[in-house]
């Protein structure tokens, strides 16, 4: 599936930005993945030194291989799930609206959208040392119609996006006021 199908793109609509979280925010999961991968090696060396005959046992050896194999497959699946959760959070900005697609685990997803001309306020929040260095943060979009808001979480260059969204919102508002 392509993005135009996902958002049911209108004829006059152009996709301007497809945003995801900044890749640096996925680094903690990669570090955790590497630590989890190293656990069986540590256990192996520990058992080899503490119980020298453990891996010569014809019963215990295949069981420990199966357990280690299941553990590795579990870790791979966990990492893949983390990646899906990270990568499938998607924000699409078109010349008409903002679409917010949030993946919550494997079996839950929320999709919401805001018309550009309804945007009342756009705020950016950059938190911490790493966020400042790598220039990523949250963009909070509030609408005029109700108290709902769309939040772009940990996206790259939030201040540029804020400028663009305000600019596009003003243009769209002009278009809609002329139309009325």
């Amino acid at each position, binding site marked *: *599936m392509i993005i135009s199908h996902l958002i049911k793109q209108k004829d006059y609509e152009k996709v301007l930005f497809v945003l995801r979280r900044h890749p640096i925010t996925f680094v903690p999961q990669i570090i955790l993945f590497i630590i989890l991968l190293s656990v069986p090696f540590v256990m192996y060396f520990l058992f080899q030194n503490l119980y020298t005959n453990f891996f010569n046992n014809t*019963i215990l050896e*295949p069981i420990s291989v*199966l357990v280690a*194999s299941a553990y590795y497959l579990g870790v791979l*699946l966990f990492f*893949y799930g983390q990646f899906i959760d990270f*990568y499938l959070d*998607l924000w699409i900005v078109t010349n008409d609206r903002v679409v917010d697609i949030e993946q919550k685990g*494997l079996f839950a997803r929320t999709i919401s959208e805001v018309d550009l001309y309804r945007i009342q306020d756009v705020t950016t929040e950059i938190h911490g040392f790493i966020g400042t260095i790598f220039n990523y943060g949250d963009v909070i979009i509030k609408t005029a119609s109700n108290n709902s808001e769309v939040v772009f979480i940990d996206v790259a260059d939030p201040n540029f996006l804020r400028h663009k969204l305000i600019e596009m919102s003003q243009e769209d508002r002009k278009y809609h006021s002329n139309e009325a």
Partner: protein
Amino acid sequence: MLIAIPLYVFLFAYFVFLAIFIFFAIMNIYHILVTASFTFTSFLVTFLILAATIIVFYFTWYLTRNTDWQATATVFNTDWFSASSNYNF
């Protein structure tokens, strides 16, 4: 009392886990496809996960290829406790 189970029971348990693993892996790939997220990054991660899975399967097969799955593993034996209680300090 002695409880001993054949090794192939562990193998069956492993296959059940494998079925769950395959189901969730397919679900993940399905999500990538239906959310228009099939990009170079998602392809690369999927490829690396699949490659790592194949390596895990290979080593599992390699390390267990000479195993006699009919052999039994004792999981509980009352003699273990009686032996420790008769232990003479």
